[in-house]
């Protein structure tokens, strides 16, 4: 069968100990049975390992940091589009999504680059700070959460919430505090890295279970695979995990994707309590770094996303294999200084 040739641009090439989803997404695309995908990697830093993975990434361009704003990003993409015919672009970082959502229509109309992202309104709805409202709207249990801007507000919350409390940054990082002293120290740590507000969340005891899912934006859940982490690094990232068969978790996840009319990939993080209740902790607005497990279980989510971005109808996946494991490993690439020089000075390789 002749595979259709397309070019897909992908961010999140930081395949480090706290990995971005870019490389797993690319692996899924490269294993497509119907698409012959050329990959244009989009990087932010010169030491992102994916830049140097020639077997997976065909060409690389540096992007301006998300703080530079959407206009600068658009300008850079205009240059890249003058060099490459990019059919689809998949952003994979939480912090960059706001800019890409803002320019998604222009990318299509001016540069003919398709994306598959939610609207700003739906994106905002599942922000960590809005989790309470999100849970209420879609009938899902969520832990009690409060956004705070001053450390003293923790004292006020002590009246209604008990320790341990979870102190979270607006994009990443979460720390479990057993006392006010710990909570205030974590507060400043989170502020230094991610700014305000800081989220104070009820600590729900149980087993963490995660779902990688894909919505078509019209109310259908195209795919969903559940996973439990088996080994966690000191950064809280899964180094190994196993796919689960949990009908109730699947039903809850589908309900979230369908009712919110989510468009694109996402990760749902739940705690399953001893009473078999599921609490949604977070909905991350992009594929997780473990999305390649979905491929290993029989659901190639990145490929399905690309097809939908190209305007094709994709039938929902109906099942997947449980008991499939992923086990990460680290790998030293040998890179000549000339290649590092190329990306550092020219912004592309």
């Amino acid at each position, binding site marked *: 069968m002749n595979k259709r040739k397309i070019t897909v641009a992908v961010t999140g090439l930081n395949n480090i100990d706290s990995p971005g989803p870019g490389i797993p997404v690319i692996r899924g695309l490269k294993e497509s049975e119907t698409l012959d995908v050329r990959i244009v990697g989009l990087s932010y830093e010169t030491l992102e390992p994916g830049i140097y993975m020639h077997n997976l990434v065909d060409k690389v361009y540096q992007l301006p940091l998300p703080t530079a704003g959407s206009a600068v990003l658009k300008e850079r993409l205009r240059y890249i589009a003058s060099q490459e015919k990019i059919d689809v672009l998949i952003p994979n970082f939480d912090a960059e999504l706001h800019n890409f959502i803002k320019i998604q229509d222009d990318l299509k109309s001016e540069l003919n680059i398709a994306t598959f992202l939610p609207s700003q309104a739906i994106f905002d709805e599942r922000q960590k700070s809005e989790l309470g409202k999100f849970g209420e709207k879609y009938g899902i249990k969520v832990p009690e959460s409060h956004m705070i801007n001053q450390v003293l507000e923790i004292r006020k919350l002590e009246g209604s919430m008990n320790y341990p409390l979870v102190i979270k940054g607006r994009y990443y990082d979460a720390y479990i505090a057993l006392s006010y002293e710990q909570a205030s120290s974590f507060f400043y740590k989170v502020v230094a890295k991610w700014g305000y507000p800081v989220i104070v969340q009820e600590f729900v005891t149980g*087993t963490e279970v995660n779902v990688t899912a894909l919505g078509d934006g019209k109310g259908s859940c195209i795919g969903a695979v559940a*996973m*439990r982490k*088996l080994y966690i690094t000191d950064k809280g990232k899964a180094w190994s*995990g*196993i*796919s*689960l*068969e*949990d009908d109730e978790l699947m039903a809850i996840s589908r309900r979230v994707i369908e009712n919110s009319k989510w468009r694109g990939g996402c990760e749902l993080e739940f705690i399953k309590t001893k009473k078999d209740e599921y609490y949604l902790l977070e909905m991350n607005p992009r594929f997780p770094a473990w999305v390649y497990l979905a491929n290993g279980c029989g659901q190639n989510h990145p490929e399905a996303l690309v097809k939908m971005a190209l305007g094709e109808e994709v039938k929902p996946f109906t099942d997947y294999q*449980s*008991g499939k494991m992923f086990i990460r490993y680290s790998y030293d690439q040998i890179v000549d200084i000339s290649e590092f020089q190329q990306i550092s000075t020219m912004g592309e390789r």
Partner: protein
Amino acid sequence: MRVRKNIAISENGFIFNPLTGDSFSVNETGVFILQKLKDGENEETIIRNLMDEYELDASTAEKDFNDFLSLLKSFQLVTNE
């Protein structure tokens, strides 16, 4: 009491629970009991089978069986349904 749906039990005693992602290793006696439960045998029959197979008296067989059953319950491998 029966083994939960979809619990995989291999001949060499490896148990996988796809609902929780947990896996366990049990010895030959464990496999013997789990297979009987999976086949839908009732508890009295399994205890009798244990007595015959391992030459046990009734109270030892019953105690060992109940100990093992509470372990299975705590790991969500069996259900009352």
